[in-house]
């Protein structure tokens, strides 16, 4: 699986992007990652390589400032680091983080459990169901 070599960092990123993800059990993480893997499956190999490289970069870059990898940072430090990427002068870095956060949002919020947890109730029967 694509995320295998960077799973710990990916989960640390995901739990920073969506704090509720830190409460997921193994099944929840499995569902989140399965959605991400499925989305990435048809993408070109170069895109997949870039993603893994970007996650590895996120793991190692914080050593320059904090002397520890991303996974070993406190939640506040992780947030500060990712905020730096989100506001980086380089479009490449901003775009990379935007893509990664999009994947996390997909994995987290496209799960029916997460949608229900935030109160999303759309269904095919529409008004009939809501007015029942």
């Amino acid at each position, binding site marked *: 699986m694509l995320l295998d070599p960077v799973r710990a960092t990916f989960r640390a990123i995901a739990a920073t992007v969506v704090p509720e993800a830190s409460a997921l059990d193994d099944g929840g993480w499995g569902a989140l990652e399965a959605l991400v893997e499925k989305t990435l499956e048809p993408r070109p190999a170069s895109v997949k390589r870039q993603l893994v490289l970007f996650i590895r970069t996120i793991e190692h870059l914080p050593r320059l400032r904090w002397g520890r990898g991303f996974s070993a940072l406190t939640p506040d430090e992780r947030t500060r680091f990712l905020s730096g990427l989100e506001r980086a002068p380089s479009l490449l870095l901003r775009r990379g983080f935007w893509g990664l956060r999009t994947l996390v949002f997909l994995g987290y919020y496209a799960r029916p459990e997460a949608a229900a947890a935030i*109160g999303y109730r*759309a269904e095919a029967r529409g008004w009939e169901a809501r007015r029942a």
Partner: protein
Amino acid sequence: MNTRAYDVVVIGSGAGGGAVASGLAPLARGGYRILVVEQGARLRDEEFTGKEAEMADALYEDGGGFLTADGAMTLAFGRVWGGSTVVYTGTSLVAPKRVIDGWRVPGLTHADVERRSRKFMDENGVHFLEPDLLNENNRLFVEGCEKAGFRAEQFPLNLRGCKGSSLCNLGCPNQAKQGTHRVQLPAALADGVEAVTRAEALRIDGTRVILRVSAPAPGEKGEPSEWAPGEYVVSAKVIVAAGGSIGTTALLLRSGLGPSLPRLGAGFTCHPAHILVAEHGRPITNDVGHPKSFFLDRAAEDGYVLETCMYFPFITAKNLTGFGAPHATLMRAFPRLQMILVLACDKAVPQNRISVDADGKAVVRYAFTKETVASLVKATRAAARIFFAAGALRVHAPSADPPLLERAEAGAIDARVSERHFRTGRISVSAAHLMGGCGMGSSAADSVTDSWGRVHGRPGLFVADSSLFPDSLEINPYLTVMAVADRAAERIREDAGALLGAPGSAR
């Protein structure tokens, strides 16, 4: 290599391809062989589940995540039997006269576009949604517009038996939306037009279309193709490219038409859009009812349009700027969220164009002009005023930093929402009205086709989709796509003797 012979091959089954198929049905009844080719699958009614990830995968190119070359904008377009008419909201507007006049296409008049648009409005059951089916997300928009000094207008919609699932953009689970897959294509098939789905048009080689037909992947939604998997050479006397702005342009470029058509790929526009979200103090009906019932048209004055909208959890999350606790807090307020889609009416500029890479895959280069960013910012400020006027407690505006405006800041919207915060790669911008690439005009020097969609110098090759638009349409485009496609069909019908010969000769 498998071979087939037809009189006419129509590539694409969306608003353009569906209208052409319908317009050519009389020829099919008269004995001509007509084939509609669709790259996507034909879904069974029960496969429209409304589940966000699986429907996005089944209905959209790249699952809805097709990116511009610099990765700064997401382009959404359908890849399914019925094309983007399966995933739009059914909003049915006739092109404004000033826009069609402004295109200055010799032979194309607004009166003709309007007449054809109204024909399709009748055919598709277009009407205003009944008041008891309007949700609060839409009512609050109208109320906010009134209080903020704007005039909201109601969208005419092409719905029959809408139950208000709010799932339009994931394909209607109740078959209420009258897309080409529900109206024009079934009628055309009943008249003898043939169809092949899961068939990708690789290139056009003179009077032949090279197709690759694929088998469904394990677990994939949709019927298998009508043809066995493999590559096909399909000969045709007339070929109609109707694969949408990106699909058609890329196909013609892959087919080597670039050198003889210097404008091929030029003139791409797309109505770049933000989804704006505001939180109210109480739950409102938002994820039930038709999502897009009203709009505010400021295209002529300020270069933008506001539309009501309601999106699904992932799309909503993706379109909010930021991450972490503030983002999650807003997501947890989902039942209290009001949403407005802000669209900029971008103009065709030389740097925005469609090309293909070495593998023939479409590449869209798009840079936001100063004017487009200014329109998005003006639109965002107007939407923020409307939200607050409707009673919202806070508004999320992508071009503000921080993006959340509290009610106490309602008097400082102009200062808080600004062009300087429009930073690509940080904020989400998406577009679903993809136009241009094969613009209409008078000669190959200024365009790709004439006003009937006939490619310059290629009497048997037509284009019939939004790629024909020489500049932005400034409204939701499907009816105008059908109108220009109807013109192409009419030209083929009227010239059938010269173009096609006698019925039966393609067998």
